């Protein structure tokens, strides 16, 4: 048997250094060929994520698929913005971490306490709003959303994670890679203040 083949059989597998190199390479590979890495994530990481999430969280399959996609989007935003330059684990592990925060926020939605002005309360107090009222509200929402969109990143992500995904400032700091919850609060305040300007 040739010597090279003997060595392959006798080795226990790739060395630790090689695994670390693979992790660094994964981020570099994403920079060079994002579609290939994303396809691999969907093929390998997504089934693991959905399986693990189904076992540990009571969330429907459709919502879990959305959560996984959001986690991938956040990962891509973090790479684009330069907030993610070093991976402690693999991209899949990174996505798991983001997904966990998104799922915790999702589950908390069931604990929502009603307050004055909340959509649910308005509809129950006033009956079905007329079509005109609905159209006016939709227009207001669209113009406000256009302002949010125009702010760009990171305001866009911070506001969506705060008001749509209902995450805490600490969770937002964890998924977007900011140093602390306080940093997120300061950024959010600045974004909202920009929106108040005419």
């Amino acid at each position, binding site marked *: 048997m040739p010597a090279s083949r003997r060595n392959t059989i006798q080795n226990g597998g790739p060395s630790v250094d090689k695994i670390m190199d693979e992790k660094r390479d994964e981020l570099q590979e994403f920079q060079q060929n*994002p*579609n290939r890495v994303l396809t691999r994530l969907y093929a390998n990481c997504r089934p693991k994520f959905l399986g693990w999430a189904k076992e540990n969280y009571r969330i429907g399959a459709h919502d879990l698929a959305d959560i996984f*996609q959001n986690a991938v*989007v956040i990962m*891509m935003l973090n790479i684009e913005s330069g907030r993610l330059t070093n991976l402690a684990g693999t991209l899949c*592990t990174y996505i798991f971490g983001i997904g966990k925060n998104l799922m915790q926020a999702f589950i908390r939605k069931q604990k929502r306490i009603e*307050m004055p002005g909340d959509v649910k309360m308005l509809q129950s107090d006033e009956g079905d709003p007329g079509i005109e009222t609905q159209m006016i509200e939709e227009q207001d929402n669209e113009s406000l959303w256009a302002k949010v969109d125009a702010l760009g990143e990171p305001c866009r992500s911070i506001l969506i994670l705060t008001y749509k995904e*209902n*995450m805490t400032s600490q969770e937002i700091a964890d998924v977007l890679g900011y140093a602390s919850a306080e940093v997120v*609060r300061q950024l959010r305040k600045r974004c909202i203040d920009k929106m108040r300007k005419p």
Partner: protein
Amino acid sequence: MNTRTEQLIEAWFANTLSENEASELRQLLATDPEVAAEFAWQQSLARAVRTGKLGNDSIHNRLNEVERRFRFRQLTFRILAIAAAVSMLVVAIWFFNRPGPAPDEVADISQRDTLETKPQPVVTTPQDSALLQKEALEREKQAAEKELQRQKAEQQRLRKLRDSLKIEVVANFQHFMNDSEFNAAGGVEEGKKMAKEAFILYDDKKYPQAATAFKSVLQNDPANNQYQFFYAISLLGAQQYPAAASILQSLTKQEGDYQTPSKYYLGLALTGAGKYKEARQAFQDYLKAPNNRQFNSLTKTMLSKLPAE
């Protein structure tokens, strides 16, 4: 608007408000017009933002393309798998239904067999020996290739197991609450500034930096169990599993507040380090320990994921 009001509004949007805090917020909304106006403004922002999606057009276009290709690939594999299964079925049906030999042929065959099974004298020419040797080498080569394939498959299986268990370790890692005097509410003696800095990094979940800071702190106070515990958790959070396991191993033997939680975290560290048998033992020790409610269900989850003994 003061910080407390901002905190209450933030907690409402994050669905972390307690009943008492909810009552406090309702009271403020009813009595303070400035707070009511700010709250209404943020609610209108929330309604507008609900129509939006994370990410930009470029990211969504890329993901749509990836999903499209992924679904196409899945469909192609399914079609090929079905085609392969149908082909095998057709071959199997043909094989078991093919016509057998006629009765006359059977008689001839059995006679022929008798003639042919008579021992024949073995003729070994140099060419025959070479051929036999070549065949033997070929068989040996095939056996070696099969063994190589089997080992590669086993290595791949172990690699997948290791990667999936590392994911489980990250998923089941819980930030242990900082109960030291160095949390946000506590005071600090002058001489313990380094320790306070280490705990601030820990509270911010900057585990690699916290681990480095705790290492320095322990040089001055090596016998301090609390520092050792949070050093070990920081190492675990930074995924330095063997180093974390080594410290947690000794903490599980020392009586005190950290003895029981150390057993759970030791299980995580050993799992991350690939020592599944020892990890199983650590998790089982945790389940037998007193005051083990905190990580009870996480421990059972980890035990179900570890490979069977």
